[in-house]
């Protein structure tokens, strides 16, 4: 008799606790859903659906708005891949993006290193702010500013001449494009490298120095491997944005600066109005960027795991 109430209570409690557990499990499922919903809707509406639309348009060979719908096919892609004019444009776009990424890395790494490890603590935020400051003006204005600096009688050449050096012919060349791109995206590189270098385990540096490693070796074997994820992330960001930028090549590149992004622009807002072809080019651009992300992220992570 004494045991019956607990049994009874167990029996009556049982469905309730099952319900409780179900409720708990449901909350576990629902909570992340609720948290992810805004971003999910955002991504779905503004990334996934538009990308699918571009994919659909890219499968309509030479489709122009207002014209009757052509039948589905791979014509746009074949047009790109079978014509060395377009392949050359794609090749040049990659060269621009790779060159500006490397330039950003070479320029950005020492700066980020200095700010993160050597600059006095109280200056750091100010220095970082100084680097982010140019981002507050539009990249278009900054590109126009480069025209003023680089043109034949511009700021740079006036300065060079005044100290007795010959003028440089940079504006309207491919170097101007790389310079402009690197300038535009350097702040991103520095910020990302800084975030990565700041977390550097200094005890390892000291230990390496204690064990007799010369500074170059410490740098190559401790600093660089530890900041590899940051380097990968920075390069990735600069590479992708450079590949898609059309303002800088258009304004600074001169007569031979056609890039993929400019070509896409021409197909949509230029005389050709070939939205099908433009979408095909866009899909290739998206594909190239996605592949780069996949490869670099994988590569970056593995390095980070094995070496840090």
């Amino acid at each position, binding site marked *: 008799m004494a045991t019956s109430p607990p049994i009874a209570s167990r029996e009556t409690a049982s469905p309730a606790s099952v319900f409780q557990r179900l409720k708990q499990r449901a909350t576990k499922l629902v909570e992340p859903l609720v948290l992810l919903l805004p971003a999910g809707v955002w991504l779905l509406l*503004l990334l996934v659906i*538009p990308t699918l*639309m*571009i994919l*659909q*348009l890219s499968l*309509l060979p*030479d489709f122009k*708005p*207002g014209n*009757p*719908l052509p039948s589905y096919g791979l014509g746009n892609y074949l047009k790109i891949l079978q*014509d060395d*004019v*377009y392949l*050359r*444009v794609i090749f*040049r776009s990659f060269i621009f993006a790779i060159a500006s990424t490397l330039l950003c890395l070479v320029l950005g790494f020492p700066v980020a290193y200095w700010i993160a490890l050597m600059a006095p603590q109280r200056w750091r935020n100010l220095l970082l702010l100084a680097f982010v400051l140019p981002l507050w003006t*539009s990249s*278009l*204005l900054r590109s*126009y500013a480069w*025209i*003023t600096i680089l*043109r*034949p*009688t*511009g700021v740079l050449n006036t300065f060079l001449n005044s100290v007795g050096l010959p003028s440089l*012919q940079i504006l*309207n060349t491919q170097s101007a494009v790389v310079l402009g791109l690197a300038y535009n995206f350097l702040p991103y590189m520095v910020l990302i490298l800084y975030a990565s270098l700041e977390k550097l385990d200094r005890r390892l540096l000291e230990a390496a120095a204690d064990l007799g490693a010369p500074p170059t070796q410490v740098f190559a074997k401790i600093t660089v491997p530890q900041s590899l994820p940051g380097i990968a992330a920075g390069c990735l960001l600069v590479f992708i944005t450079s590949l898609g930028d*059309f*303002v800088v090549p*258009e*304004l600074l*590149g*001169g*007569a*031979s*600066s*056609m890039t993929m992004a400019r*070509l896409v*622009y*021409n*197909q*949509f*807002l*230029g*005389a*050709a*109005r*070939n*939205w099908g072809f433009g979408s095909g080019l866009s899909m290739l651009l998206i594909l190239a960027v996605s592949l780069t992300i996949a490869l670099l992220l994988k590569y970056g992570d593995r390095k980070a795991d094995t070496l840090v």
Partner: protein
Amino acid sequence: MSKRGFYPPRRFPRMSPGRRRFLQLSTAAMAGAVLTNCAGNIAQNDADSTDTEAEATASNEGSASGDDTLHIYSWSSYFDDDMIAGFEEATGIRVVADIYDSNETMLARLQAGGGGQYSIIYPSDYMIEQMIEMDMLLELDHDELPDLADLIEQWQSPPYDPGNDYSIPYSWGTTGLIYNVAELGEVEDWEYLWENQEELTRRMTLLNDVREVAGITLKMLGYSNSTEDAAEVEEAFAMLEELKPALSAFTTDGWRDQIVPGDLLIAHAYSVDALDAIAENDDLEYVVPSSGATVWTDGIAIPTTAPNVEAAYAWMNYVLNPESAAEVMSRLQLATPNKLTLDSLDSELKADTRLFPPEEVLAKCEALAPVGDAIDLYDRLWTQLTST
């Protein structure tokens, strides 16, 4: 407005029709968003009519005040506050003006269904022809437009819109060469660029516009600048390839900041832009080349989706009225196609051959017309020209 100074603000008040790269680039991001929206509409062409209907009702609801608001979509240099104030005073219709920077932007917006509120648009000649073909323009009732008879003969029945059935011409100009007369002396024809290629190396630019650039060599070769003949187009581009190594850039308004201080010696330019730059440097001169050039016209039209057609006619009549137009056109420094307006202009302005070229020069000029699917060939050769 200071003449020198930071780029965009200085540009703004005299932005020329369709020919300003700056705004075009800066709105590109926005255009991207617009295009994304378009995909849905244009990918299902059959659903088009329902879309536009929905658009029209939506915009009617948007301007609940209904008949007393007129939305116009225009180039920034084609109106000013005084002009709008004059119209509002005369008619009691409130005007809301939005601006665009290229015909293609305007077209993309209307096609995407984002332009349902506009009752007045300002397309250029070739765009008018294209939009007529696409049934996007309302056929005009000439009884509503008594002043149409005052147009100069050439614009009574322009080739892009015979009989002005769908549009009225508003402003026109040419595409020629702006050059430094102090350094180069008189320049007469396009030939000059090829003959003096060495001296001009990296000191000349052509427009960043496939049709205008192809038009140069097509005219030199004696062909129409709107040819659809593949052999002629290829011949024209082969000539451009010869000139290419000496070119500094293809740019629609980047030449300006370089030719004024003397970095550039010669540039391919629209007459309105050239006149503007000449005002900043007396050494500069503008010429319409003797083998002929492009003559362009920007018109005014009513889209088929217009919610307020009555107000649109009122705007057209206001623009055509010589009394109000003469003042506006001289203030905005535009060349008018209206005889009476022209007559009432300042004699000094009227005698400006750069704004109003002499008859014999104009006779050799030609408007750009759509080239149909040949545009794909133009575009491919243009990509080649700008990438090698």
